[in-house]
């Protein structure tokens, strides 16, 4: 099957907005995807969770859009909309019938141009409560729910911008004021800090006219880019970190964390292929050995999250079957990582991993929403939207030697964080039995 190429245009408006357009007329749909180069790494001490809280505020109305109306307008137009916040960036996106493109552009431009005009203490208080409930739901009231916070806190030192998670702390959320929100907006939300990707059933000339009409008048912020604290880190942790975490869980779980090469570094491609070979489905090494053969684990994972400065993170886990020796489980998992550092993977194993990666990539790129997201991502984080067409060839070119070499650099004892989640103290059990 030939690898399809995404043809796109890439330009900047005079105010700095980067505009990327790709036509795809197969279905009468269009994706609008706006990435802002601001994430939780930009938060000040005592203001954690702010970038994400702000993302919620972006749905609370602007000069010409009422509270909670943004999503309502998009849905009434037959579309879907959402946003997300991560360490390096925040994004907002809509997917709609293609005849509604102008509406989505107007909505995005209106909040970028006028958000503070609609901001009220009441709306901020409301979304603060919503976000606190999101934290309770996604982290605090969920088995193993603290793992992301613990992995980030372990892999990145306390003064590092990646040390805290995007959800932040309850105390910091409580401290956020409308003035903080406005200041955050004025600093980071400007056209010269954004990438706008439009993918789907569009006439590029018409789309460009609309973008110029709605986004063109919004002024750039000359204070950008924002200076961040020094983010570089040694490639490895420099010493093992271990923690035993009692939690309300019935099965123990061993969770690993490692520093890894940066997003865009070809060595991370090789590490992704290693993840596929180790834990990508039922044919993978860890699944075969720990789940199928030795039956120590209920499930296994291993994956990387690419970040742009300091170090990315690689994480994974094995959930223990009841009654097994956790040390044995940990050793067996570790042995498989170490084996990757010493022996080359076989041609057949590598070929299967590549075939699966190819199918996954081709499947993902069928959807306009995914194409728009990748274009924005590569443009925002690496200034290289063309990677959308080069990533799959890069994966297919990874060699067994490259996989061994990156595993040898990452899977070393000095670079590992090991969290062992164990069923919480028996006090609870006694109470329940009483």
């Amino acid at each position: 099957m030939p690898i399809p190429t995404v043809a796109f245009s890439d330009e900047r408006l005079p105010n700095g907005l980067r505009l990327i357009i790709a036509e795809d007329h197969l279905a009468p749909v269009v994706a609008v995807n706006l990435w802002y180069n601001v994430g939780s790494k930009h938060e000040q001490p005592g203001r954690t969770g702010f970038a994400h809280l702000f993302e919620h505020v972006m749905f609370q109305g602007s000069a010409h859009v009422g509270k909670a109306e943004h999503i309502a307008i998009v849905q009434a137009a037959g579309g879907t909309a959402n946003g997300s916040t991560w360490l390096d960036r925040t994004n907002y996106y809509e997917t709609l019938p293609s005849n509604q493109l102008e509406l989505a552009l107007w909505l995005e431009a209106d909040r970028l141009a006028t958000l503070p005009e609609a901001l009220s203490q009441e709306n901020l208080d409301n979304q603060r409560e919503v976000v606190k409930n999101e934290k309770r739901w996604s982290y605090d009231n969920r088995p193993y729910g603290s793992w992301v916070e613990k992995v980030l806190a372990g892999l990145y030192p306390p003064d590092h911008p990646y040390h805290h998670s995007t959800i932040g702390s309850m105390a910091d959320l409580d401290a956020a004021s409308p003035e903080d929100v406005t200041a955050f907006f004025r600093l980071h939300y400007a056209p010269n800090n954004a990438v706008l990707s439009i993918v789907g059933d569009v006439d590029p000339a018409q789309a460009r006219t609309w973008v110029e009409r709605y986004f063109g008048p919004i002024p750039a912020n000359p204070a950008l880019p924002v200076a961040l604290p020094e983010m570089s880190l040694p490639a490895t942790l420099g010493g093992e970190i271990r923690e035993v975490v009692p939690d309300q869980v019935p099965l123990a779980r061993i969770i690993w964390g490692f520093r890894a090469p940066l997003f865009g570094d070809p060595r991370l491609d090789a590490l992704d292929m290693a993840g596929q070979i180790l834990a990508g489905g039922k044919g993978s090494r860890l699944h075969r050995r720990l789940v199928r053969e030795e039956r120590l684990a209920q499930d296994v994972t291993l994956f990387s999250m690419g970040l742009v400065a300091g170090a990315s993170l690689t994480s994974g886990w094995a959930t223990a079957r009841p009654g097994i020796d956790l040390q044995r489980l940990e050793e067996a998992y570790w042995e498989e990582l170490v084996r990757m550092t010493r022996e080359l993977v076989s041609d057949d194993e590598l070929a299967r991993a590549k075939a699966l990666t190819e199918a996954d990539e081709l499947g993902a790129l069928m959807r306009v929403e995914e194409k728009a997201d990748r274009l924005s991502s590569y443009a925002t984080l690496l200034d290289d939207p063309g990677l959308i067409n080069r990533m799959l060839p890069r994966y297919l070119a990874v060699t067994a030697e490259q996989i061994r070499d990156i595993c040898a650099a990452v899977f070393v004892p000095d670079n590992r964080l090991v969290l062992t989640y164990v069923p919480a103290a028996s006090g609870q059990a006694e109470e329940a039995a009483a």
Partner: protein
Amino acid sequence: MVIATRPSHGEPRPYHFPSFSHERLSNGVDVIAVHLPERELLTGVLFESIGAGDEHDDEAGLTVLMARAMTEGTRTHDAVALVEAGERLGASIHAEAGWDALSVGADVPAERLGPALDLVAEIMAEPIFPESEVERLREERLNDILQARADPRRRAEEGFIETIYAPGSPYRRPASGTRETVERIDAGAVRAMHARRFDPNRMTLIVGGDLTGIDVVRLAQARFGGWAPSLSCEGPRQVPARPADHPWRIRILDRPGSVQTEIRIGHVGLKRRIPDFHALSVMSAILGGLFNSRLNRVLREDRGYTYGASAGFELRRAAGPFAARAAVNTDVTVPAIRDILAELEGIGERPVTQDELHAARDFLVGVFPLRFETPSAVVGAISSIVIHGLPDDELARYRPALEAVSAEDVTAAARSHVHPDEASILLVGDASAFLADLEAAGLGAVTVEREAATGAA
């Protein structure tokens, strides 16, 4: 200058759900091909319209486990060889079962469709169900049952269905079964079920994607056409989904220390094949489907009680559950319940506004093409109409039927199908924080069950 005026929309490009054709093989296998130009990653799914809802009480979970075990080895390939054969094709091959059907399918590049269907045929017809692998899958399911008890939202879903359905109703339990029934499953039981259910006469193959130069019927005939039709095969049981006669109206599964309460309020709902399906869809969107649904508007955007509140019907071959759902911070549990009940009452009483009606209809009509960008989504939608015995033009007439729904239709659907006076309330949370308020609220008798600590596995 910022443009203040909201733009109007352009002319919509026409959209038609892809047309498809049927051809029945001589042994009864129905073959459906749906051509989607330029979609070169194909989806092929072979399914049998019999599922977990057709199980006897004492074998609950057997269908789902059987489906998982079907990829654990065939007469031709052992489990690992089977996985590797699929991976070499770049095909993700899966076997799974739900309430109404069991399916074996593959997503695969067009030029490798034939070899992928070879594997599909093998998995469907010739699984050997090795004892040791069935035992492993059984243990994994038992461990998953432990995990489900520890996860407040999964616990709430399971607690809710066992509250609203009568004993003996299959929907009272998870499709994957309960500890009592799963513990009894072994390879013999799985093989016996496979033997008594395998029937080409109720199987359907659907292949979607760019089928240029591909003769799906010929490929199907070569692989599935030789299977003998079954004469003595067990048919679907169509067990009625009986509601409980309310042993609990309000039930708390107590988890001391929980920072949120998972709330489920509802009752036995509807099957998929109902005459007012489209009115029901619009009503559900207004009540609890849209971002600005009545429930989300009040509980999230007005009050900040939750990250999200929703409501909806799970439509199966028999009547699936209807539930309103929210996870709220513990101290607002009782006010949140009151708000949800008020909206369940209001949907049949407070007339639907024209704005609500248009928002819901236009959303459902507009997102319809968005849902079908990929072959796997198209194939999934067609398999659903086959499973529910709906006419072939069901999807083609979806949009006109929705556009014809009126405000009166929505209110009528609400009055017919949403019954707050018959609803049970299931809560998973810290009872000590809200029990007194709940009892004082006068909603009915409250039962509190202390959850066994999840740490004591």
